[in-house]
């Protein structure tokens, strides 16, 4: 189940750094903690924000920690407000090249709009940790080599 980490670094040896977090008041952290741990076990550098982050806090941590991607979990139904806000703030701060992907209770019909706003991928209930790890391997790369 835990395959040897292969493509977690780029040519210069820099590991992919990920910020994994919860945004909003939603306290459902079972999934996000499993994802954070699975990504760490797969060899990525993972920073977990903890609960109750505002979009501003997430963006500021992402920039400070110089991450390659931000992975956000939302199960409260506030995704259509909070995710576009994170995207806007990243652009405003000149960090629009930080990739964002999300997971949680997100109805299929909301996904196209989120992707249009720049969210790279959305994982819905039932997604395996393997599918998330594979996604990061293939789609997330260190921003500066």
């Amino acid at each position, binding site marked *: 189940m835990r395959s040897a980490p292969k493509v977690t670094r780029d040519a210069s040896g820099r590991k992919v750094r990920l910020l994994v977090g919860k945004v*909003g*008041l939603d*306290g459902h*952290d*079972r999934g996000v*903690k499993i994802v954070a*741990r699975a990504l760490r076990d797969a060899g990525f550098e993972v920073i977990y924000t903890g609960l109750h982050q505002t979009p501003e806090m997430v963006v500021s941590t992402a920039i400070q920690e110089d991450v390659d991607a931000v992975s956000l979990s939302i199960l409260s139904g*506030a995704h259509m407000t909070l995710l576009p806000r994170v995207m806007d703030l990243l652009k405003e701060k000149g960090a629009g090249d930080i990739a964002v992907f999300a997971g949680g*209770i997100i109805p299929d019909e909301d996904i196209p709009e989120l992707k249009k706003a720049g969210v790279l991928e959305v994982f819905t209930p*039932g997604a395996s940790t393997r599918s998330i790890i594979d996604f990061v391997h293939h789609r997330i790369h260190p921003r500066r080599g």
Partner: protein
Amino acid sequence: MAKTTRTLDGQTGTRAAGEGGRQGWEERTLRPALEKSPERDVRFTTVSDFPIQRLGTPEDIAALNLDSDLAAPGEFPYTRGIHPTMYRGRLWTMRQFSGFGTAKLTNERYRYLLSQGQTGLSVAFDLPTLMGRDSDDPMALGEVGREGVAIDSLADMETLFSGIPLDRISTSMTINSPAAILFAMYVAVGEKQGVASEILEGTIQNDILKEYIAQKEWIYPPRPSLRIITDIMAYCAERVPRWNTISISGYHIREAGSTAIQELAFTLADGIGYVQAGIEAGMDVDAFAPRLSFFFNSHNDFFEEVCKLRAARRIWARVMRDRFHAKDERSWKLRTHVQTAGCSLTAQQPYTNIVRVTVQALAAVLGGTQSLHTNSMDETLALPTEEAVTIALRTQQILAEESGVAGTVDPLGGSYFVEDLTRRMEEGALDLIHRIDAMGGIVAAIEAGFPQREIAEAAYLYQMQIDSGEKTVVGVNKHTIPPEDDHKIPILKIDQAIEADQLTRLRALRQSRDAAAVARALEALRSSAAGSDNLMPRILDAVKAYATVGEICACMKTVFGEYRETPVL
């Protein structure tokens, strides 16, 4: 069938497994059978990864004392149920949890439900309310009215219960950290309707310990939170005697990924924590313990769930009588609500959820629950539609009125397997409870991150077992269909305009109320919080001056501080 002479013990005449008991059967019949065709698996476990036996036999219950361990229904330690007639006397209460959008919208839904013969309401609040934040708090952005009803002040509560006579219904409110405030609002609405607090009936969840452990909707640190709870218990004992002051909840612990035994142990340990806090606050145990109730989860593994509820009653009865020396029988009886497991539902092939809920609900009934909420098939996707809620309610009605299971008290009692699994789960839970006692009790254990770590570990293990296919989830890792062929079911949409609407009302309230009265009430509350007076009368005054939930919580935060979690991965 067993031919039993006098006792159920293997040595004296039982022949359930033939001559020589289980061992004889294993050598004579089982081994050759296994040599010819092995079993499907080398290891059989529950959904919680708890090993289960191939066969229950009389040897398994040889040590079970039929009088002191099992006893009759309605008799200590209530393993077989807290009532002598159980569902022959009265069916369990079918109480479906609901609330969304504004107080006005939810009030319309409640009035409809009451007109259909429902006698109890169960209020779901939105996240900002649950977290003690007003709708205009920056943290409330996008959350107002989304997962439940938005309540900012007494004005919203008046709307929520408008036209609903509080002397004729019972109301359950799922609210924890700000429970004292929402409860005070309910009492105030009652007063305005001319209903004395002495006759109000209902429940507040008010279980803060499981928030730190699992659900994560907290405001203050554990110790001041417990002070608020003991103030509520003391106030109710005197002024609102028919109110259930805490619904000690394992539901969220299980949803956060615990095993069944962890759910059992941490929930009862929380209960022990509340009783201890009440006694330390100077109350007589029998003055408040009869108003404590419980709330458990019912997951997919049928027998594990049945046995969990049976073990819970037995442990609690003994804890209350022997450890806390309660004299009143009502203090010994574990009354519980059960909700089927939200986390067990699948977004894939959503109609299969109806079947899962049926099995889980049946386990809750055969486990002897007092009330039940059945989840709707669409709840992995959104709040339920009316059609989905109706199917969920019909599921309970079919169990109650068609299946025949309500006609006999504890029909599984005496099953070798069920009695043995009940005992093994009891032992597993007691072992964890003793470890928590050794840490200095549940608050110290929470502060050390013990239950949080145990649950995170169990949740991760379970996910790995699903990802590897070791545990099956139909439609997710087995018997799957391509997403494009899957059923699309209708989803309830919450109008984004609700948030703006609520903000307008809140702004108007802040302008129209007597600001000086609000400031005076909050100052009085702050000074009570800094001292040791019961907080309830001060909170009631603040609520009646139309101070908001957010303002009252902010005021108490200045004294109690705010909780910060050290996350455990």
